[in-house]
């Protein structure tokens, strides 16, 4: 029986396996915690990868939208008594609205200019979070009310492992759908050459805006999940370093690769856990890893391995 599966279906199956298989065998809550963190980061990175890998637009402020999702989830219940899940949804809408508002002028910029503009936006967001102590708790951050579903409080790492795993699968499905739509084809066209895409009649500005808003939604959903899961947020969630981490995850895993986003997130989340033994060296090792990957495996882990595998399979 020759069952031919499309790449999209294979990616989806792989994602489900990545979530389910470890979920059945992990030995302790600590591992479920790390797993949930991997899935949450991967979700944010898929959004960034849509923007960077498929549409070719850089963002060094992705964590800013992550922070809006997280802080929306934290602030609305604390200040206005909203239920946490409604607050999370509102946080996501706010992030999308901000992306929509600033996207049009900012996405006209290219290369380094776009990088520095998005960086500036991310910095401004964290600065507000740090400065508005009365609302956000300032640099110390604030506690997040636990979400309750049908009287069941969501707090165990196992619960969050499955919730964030489910969100990741949904995120992958949405991304695959987007990429297989006319929008996806338009995005790839403008990645190759914005001028050529424009000449072909593609509304470049509009599609860039669509993917920028989509990326911010991914980041905000991930941020909201992190806030509800960890029960505490600090401005660090939106810091420049966090944005750099997201970019690094996307690049290490492979730009333009959905599975690469998951692998990249897994590497950068799990590695520091392993390295806590040498906590002193964490920043140093992260830097060295980034440099080595960028020099020796520039295409990223997943595309790199895939290329090697195809080379071996085809005589």
């Amino acid at each position, binding site marked *: 029986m020759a069952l031919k599966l499309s790449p999209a279906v294979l990616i989806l199956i792989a994602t489900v396996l990545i979530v389910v298989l470890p979920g059945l065998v992990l030995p302790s809550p600590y591992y479920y915690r790390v797993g949930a963190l991997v899935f949450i980061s991967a979700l944010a990175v898929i959004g960034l990868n849509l923007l960077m890998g498929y549409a070719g637009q850089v963002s060094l402020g992705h964590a800013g939208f992550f922070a809006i999702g997280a802080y929306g989830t934290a602030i609305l219940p604390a200040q206005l008594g909203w239920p946490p899940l409604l607050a999370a949804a509102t946080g996501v809408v706010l992030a999308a609205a901000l992306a929509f508002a600033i996207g049009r002028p900012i996405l006209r910029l290219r290369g380094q200019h776009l990088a520095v503009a998005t960086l500036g936006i991310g910095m401004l967001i964290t*600065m507000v979070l740090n400065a508005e102590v009365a609302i956000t708790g300032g640099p110390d951050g604030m506690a997040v009310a636990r979400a309750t579903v049908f009287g069941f409080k969501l707090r165990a790492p196992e619960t969050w492992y499955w919730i964030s795993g489910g969100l990741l699968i949904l995120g992958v499905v949405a991304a695959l759908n987007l990429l297989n739509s006319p929008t996806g084809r338009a995005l790839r066209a403008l990645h190759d050459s914005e001028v050529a895409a424009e000449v072909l009649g593609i509304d470049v500005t509009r599609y860039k805006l669509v993917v920028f808003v989509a990326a911010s939604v991914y980041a905000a959903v991930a941020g909201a999940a992190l806030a509800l899961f960890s029960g505490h947020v600090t401005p660090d969630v939106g810091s420049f370093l966090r944005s750099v981490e997201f970019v690094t995850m996307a690049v290490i895993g492979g730009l333009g690769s959905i599975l690469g986003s998951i692998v990249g997130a897994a590497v950068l989340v799990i590695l520091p856990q392993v390295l806590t033994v040498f906590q002193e060296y964490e920043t140093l090792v992260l830097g060295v890893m980034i440099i080595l990957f960028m020099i020796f495996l520039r295409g990223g882990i997943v595309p790199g391995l895939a290329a090697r595998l195809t080379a071996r399979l085809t005589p």
Partner: protein
Amino acid sequence: MDDLSGSNVMADFVQFAMSGLTVGAVYALVALGFTLIYNASSVVNFAQGEFVMLGGMATVFLAALGLPIPLAALAAVAVAVVTGLLVHTLVIEPARGANAVTLIILTIGVSLVLRGAAPLVFDKQFHKLPGFSGEEPVSLLGALVQPQAFWVVGGTAVIVLALKVFLAHTLFGKAVLATAADRMAARLSGINTSVIVGFCFAMSAAIGAIAGILVTPITLTSYDVGVILSLKGFAAAVLGGIGNPLGAVAGGLLLGLLESFAAGYLSSTYKDAVAFAILIAVLIVMPGGLARVKHVERV
């Protein structure tokens, strides 16, 4: 105390202007180092601020080992130059031909390495150097200015002038300019552009380290001062029009002044936000920066 007479208003203004110029001079030097490397190689070097950290920290620690401060400062500049050369040889050269984003991530990697190594080599404390001409504030139009501020502003002026003379009047400087103008053409006329780029890394590292040494008596230094300086130096370079050395200096000074006035007259909480708000506004309204650098896309 709350005397709002004319002389007080003037004194406040001078006070803010002087502190703005001092900080701005450091941004200007970081932006200048940035521009040198960018022009020679199109690399946006996010590790530029780490050279400032290196200059200050190495001087402090070499002085603690018993070296007289001028000698310690000289050695610290040498340490930064060697680091700059190593960055070029070990990281930038092997990545030749990589795209802009990859190069940005690489230099971010370099900055993480330097910032990660600094607490291991030095420590995590804040450090100060004594002012070069003592600590007694000087009265200037009613404002009290630290004498070190004059060292910072004067030192910046000297570096900018020296760089200008070097680029315009020496053969090597002209080779740097030729490489910046057109790498391919420079190579065809027999210039070893790889040596030039390496040299620019060394020079940028030296400029950054000198900035760090000059400003440490005023702002103190620690292992993690580099990141924000890199970002603001980058902002200054973009503000001035990326790739334009004089624009970079002007951008740095302007950024410092705006920050200082914003902190003085508006709100000190949002002092740092000013830089980035201006940056975004400039990018959107005039993407060429103050120098109106034009970008033409070749298809």
